């Protein structure tokens, strides 16, 4: 596994953990009815900031653990490989697909908001979840492209 693949795997694992925690938290807010109360905007804004912070911390912790396990298992020192042209093309391709996915998700949420009876705060939470979902899809595509060669 190259260092670029390792980075993608770390990003994927941390995104999955953070998204799972966020969905759990968001579902809790929704079920308790807090999103209908006067504190809804504060709760949504706070949860987004907490998620960003938690994402960074989880990513750092997993990166450290992954590096230790990889070094112990393979005996290879973590290299400082910079991205080459193939890495950049894979990144671009994955980003394009993630952008399209997020756009469709966002449009679907707007549609639900326009024609359904869903509150704006829940839509905000779902939009953030959709953003993370697109990021996870992007990482999955990168891993597939790295495994296939391109």
């Amino acid at each position, binding site marked *: 596994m190259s260092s*670029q693949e390792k980075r993608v795997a770390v990003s994927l694992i941390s995104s999955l953990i953070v998204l799972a925690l966020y969905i759990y938290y968001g579902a809790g807010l929704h079920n308790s009815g807090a999103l209908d109360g006067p504190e809804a905007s504060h709760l949504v804004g706070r949860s987004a900031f907490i998620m960003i912070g938690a994402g960074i911390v989880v990513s750092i912790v997993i990166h450290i653990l992954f590096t230790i396990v990889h070094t112990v298992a393979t005996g290879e020192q973590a290299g400082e490989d910079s991205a080459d042209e193939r890495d950049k093309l894979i990144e671009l391709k994955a980003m394009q697909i993630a952008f399209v996915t997020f756009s469709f998700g966002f449009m679907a949420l707007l549609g639900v908001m326009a024609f359904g009876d869903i509150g704006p705060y829940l839509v905000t939470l779902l939009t953030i979840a959709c953003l993370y979902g697109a990021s996870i899809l992007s990482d999955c595509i990168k891993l597939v492209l790295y495994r296939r*060669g391109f």
Partner: protein
Amino acid sequence: MKKGQISNNVRRLRFENHEMTQQQLAKAVGVSRQTIVAIEKCKYSPSLELAFLIAHTFNTPLGDVFSFCMEKKVTCANPS
């Protein structure tokens, strides 16, 4: 745009150049070993700059390293 197939002789040239490893070639041209593997398997077509760099490393003209064919189903020159 019409599509063709780019094949290459990178693997053969490596062996003709003192059995150069993929890692050594990758280091010489400044890419990862995985990129060299992908080029050899014809799964990735390098940029013009990288193609020239590879040819320069082997001290050979670009046309001896890479070749282009308009036919769609052409097998790679050096399938691994």
